[in-house]
């Protein structure tokens, strides 16, 4: 269907005209509210309180969602919202990684609040269109597109019956439809999901940007927590923003020169050092695959192992050969770390688009490990095809990978069989079956429909329907709080175990990616170092999501002098850059302590939000034992020397003459105690009770003593 036909099929449901607010020191001071149930559109004031206590980005999302829902609200109730907010620093073009959007909703996976961050142009263009945040509530009757035109000052809700649902088609169609000409396409960004988001709980959001050199729409993902499923439940096909006239000073910052100087400093640093460090400009994030395999941290066969003899096949050099690498591969202007790699002209071998040559965004490390090694698959073409289909179907590659790996282990253990899977032989390494499972998820058919519920629900089904041993499934099912694990083997890293387990939204690396500094750089040797890291880094990383910045330019490039600093893990020069940027944009005068304090307030708020929704206590910080140590004899014996050594050195137990089962039990007791011990230490450090609830004085300390929060935590003191 031609674009003009698509346009003709649109039916206007609501229109709102507005004069776009000018950005003042990073804020427009307005947010856009759209309710699809009654097609209401209005502007809201962003208050001084919001800016002071919640800063922006994820903070604004949490605040709006708190006010939109009740403790009884479910993810698929009309009251649930999707909030997209870029943060005050987002949209500057001078410093790498400054185009992030933060998305917040009630998650179908965790049943509580979740946040996910994403690149692409949507957040900055939304802000320059006059909005610090977009709040979407309610449900449409039929598929709609929300169109925000910041140049014309108009917001429309339009029924959009004819466009595709799958993102690679839809994002192209909507870009074409709303652009005035080829040159105008760069002024458009689309948020969309896909057909698997219609039929699974693992749906994600694609955020697009137009790539003028390759003349194609590129997609970045807000992957975690099933937000795409929420989008489609609201019958939203796409959210489109259009803004013309981008310049480098549209944030109207307090000190433009300071931003430019800070940005140029980092551009030069990347130019000088990237070739000798992670080679992000060449490899993207694929560089991690080889390192993780070398350090026994690459999830293999449902996190049983951390490396594989075939691991080399999916290491960076093999991807670089396939990339259509450019020099400007950023997902927002000015990101010279340029990790948004792409494979062009990839011919699909399966599925509805079989035979077509497509553009594949990525693969990123998490995708390689998730759909690849963790499923025992080391085939590059499979990984690319799976990457493409996950993206266009709107399904999170991490949750898909980790869920499929879990299913494969269940299949190999006879917990499920061919009859149950409808003929799919889902052994580790079965790429054809895994691909078919993905297509079934998109079609909402067969075993794919069940698999798309995610690990937490699958465990319940396997126990209830097939008599599986609940204890075993809880040990090997790599989910916590209902969210599937991101792709790092944390068995030998206590700090990463807790980094995953104590994360507010579930085991996602963006809150506490500590494995590299712990296991590769060996920067957290003592228990105290680890406990402190579990306070500082989640707070620091949360902050980046409050202001709209990417984490990669913080630690994927490191200044020469960093090794001589007091705490190399912090990369303090880059932290100072962020403080400088925040001050230069907003005109405020915070220091590094102030930055962490800003985060702590929001972090505490999110923890109480979990409590409000019926979670947020110690029992919900438990993790599957597979994330802590060897569950099975096979796992233990594969690293017997290491584990026997630990029994001797750490526990003073002679492993001689003991059965593997006995040794597993002894090691498990020790490791579980360690986890409890570090949980105690982190709770204490975060100002929480032994049950993981923020203390009243903690809320007061960070100015989060709103009456509703105080009332809630009082019940748990």
């Amino acid at each position, binding site marked *: 269907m031609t674009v003009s036909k698509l346009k003709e099929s649109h039916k206007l449901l609501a229109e709102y005209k507005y004069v776009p607010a000018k950005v003042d020191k990073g804020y427009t001071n307005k947010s856009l509210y759209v309710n699809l149930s009654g097609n209401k559109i209005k502007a809201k004031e962003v208050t001084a309180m919001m800016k002071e206590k919640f800063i922006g980005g994820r903070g604004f999302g949490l605040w709006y969602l708190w006010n939109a829902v009740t403790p009884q609200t479910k993810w698929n109730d009309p009251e649930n919202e999707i909030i997209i907010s870029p943060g005050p620093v987002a949209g500057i073009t001078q410093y790498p990684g400054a185009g992030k959007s933060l998305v917040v909703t009630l998650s179908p996976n965790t049943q509580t609040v979740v946040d996910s961050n994403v690149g692409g142009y949507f957040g900055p263009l939304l802000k320059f269109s006059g909005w610090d945040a977009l709040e979407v509530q309610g449900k449409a009757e039929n598929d709609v597109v929300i169109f925000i035109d910041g140049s014309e000052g108009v917001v429309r809700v339009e029924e959009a019956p004819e466009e595709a649902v799958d993102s690679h088609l839809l994002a192209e169609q909507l870009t074409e439809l709303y652009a005035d000409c080829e040159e105008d396409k760069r002024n458009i960004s689309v948020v969309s999901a896909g057909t698997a988001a219609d039929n699974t709980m693992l749906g994600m959001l694609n955020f697009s940007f137009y790539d003028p050199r390759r003349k194609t729409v590129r997609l970045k993902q807000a992957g975690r927590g099933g937000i795409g499923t929420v989008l489609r439940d609201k019958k939203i096909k796409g959210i489109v923003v259009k803004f013309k006239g981008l310049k480098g000073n549209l944030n109207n910052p307090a000190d433009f020169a300071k931003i430019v100087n800070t940005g140029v400093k980092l551009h030069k640093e990347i130019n000088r050092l990237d070739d000798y460090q992670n080679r992000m400009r060449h490899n993207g994030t694929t560089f991690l695959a080889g390192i993780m395999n070398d350090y026994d941290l690459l999830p293999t066969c449902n996190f049983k192992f951390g490396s594989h003899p075939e691991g080399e096949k999916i290491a960076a050099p093999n991807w670089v050969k396939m990339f259509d690498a450019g020099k400007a591969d*950023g997902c927002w202007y000015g990101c010279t770390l340029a990790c948004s790699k792409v494979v062009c002209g990839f011919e699909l071998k399966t599925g509805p688009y079989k035979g077509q040559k497509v553009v594949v965004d990525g693969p990123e490390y998490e995708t390689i490990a998730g759909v690849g090694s963790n499923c025992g698959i080391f085939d590059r073409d499979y990984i690319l095809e799976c990457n493409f289909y996950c993206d266009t179907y709107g399904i999170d590659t991490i949750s898909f990978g980790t869920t499929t790996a879990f299913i494969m282990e269940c299949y190999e253990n006879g917990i499920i069989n061919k009859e149950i899977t409808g003929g799919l032989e889902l052994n580790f390494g079965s790429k054809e079956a895994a691909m078919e499972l993905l297509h079934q998820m998109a079609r909402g058919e067969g075993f794919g429909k069940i698999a798309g519920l995610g690990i937490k629900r699958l465990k319940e089904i396997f126990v209830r329907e097939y008599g599986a041993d609940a204890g075993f499934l809880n040990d090997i099912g790599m989910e916590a709080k209902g969210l599937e694990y991101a792709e790092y083997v944390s068995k030998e890293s206590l700090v990463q175990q807790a980094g995953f387990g104590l994360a507010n939204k579930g085991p996602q690396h963006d809150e506490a990616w500590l494995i590299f500094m712990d296991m590769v750089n060996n920067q957290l040797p003592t228990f105290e170092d680890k406990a402190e890291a579990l306070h500082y880094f989640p707070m620091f990383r949360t902050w980046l999501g409050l202001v709209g910045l990417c984490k990669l330019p913080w630690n994927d490039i490191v200044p020469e002098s960093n090794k001589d600093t007091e705490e190399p893990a912090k990369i303090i020069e880059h932290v100072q850059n962020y403080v400088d940027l925040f001050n230069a944009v907003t005109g405020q005068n915070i220091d590094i302590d102030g930055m962490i304090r800003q985060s702590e307030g929001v972090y505490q708020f999110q923890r109480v939000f979990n409590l409000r929704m019926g979670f947020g206590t110690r029992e919900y910080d438990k993790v599957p034992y597979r994330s802590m140590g060897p569950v099975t004899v096979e796992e233990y014996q594969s690293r017997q020397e290491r584990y026997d050594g630990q029994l001797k050195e750490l526990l003073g137990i002679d492993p001689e003459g003991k059965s593997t089962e006995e040794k597993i039990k002894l090691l498990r007791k020790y490791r579980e105690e360690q986890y409890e011990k570090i949980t105690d230490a982190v709770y204490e450090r975060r100002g929480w009770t032994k049950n993981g609830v923020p203390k009243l004085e903690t809320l007061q300390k960070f100015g989060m003593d709103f009456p509703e929060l105080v009332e809630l935590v009082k019940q748990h003191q």
Partner: protein
Amino acid sequence: MKKLVKNEKLCTACGACQRICSQTYFKEDNKEKSAIGIKAEDSGTTIIACSQCGECIDLCPAEAIYRDQKGVVRIKNSICVGCFSCVGFCPEGAMFYHGDYTEPFKCTACGLCVKECPSGAITIQG
């Protein structure tokens, strides 16, 4: 290809080139706003000016940098988004910027500075 050619041995670091450059393009006598840089050190003088190598062209995310018919690398300010990636990656350090402006600037081999140079240290080739 039209470009500025330098003979640093002849340079006296008098700054005449920078004056005319900043006056012409920014209406100000300010060497910080000149598209030609002079570094005078004990070991000798360095002249920093664009060699028109074009490395910045593919680096620009907005496709705002192009080579004109005479081979001169130019910036289309109307679509430049002011990210200054080109500044950080210029092999010559010859892409300049100033906090007063949202776009970078560079030598376009206009030749005005050549006329001002008293020692013949710079010439235009091509």
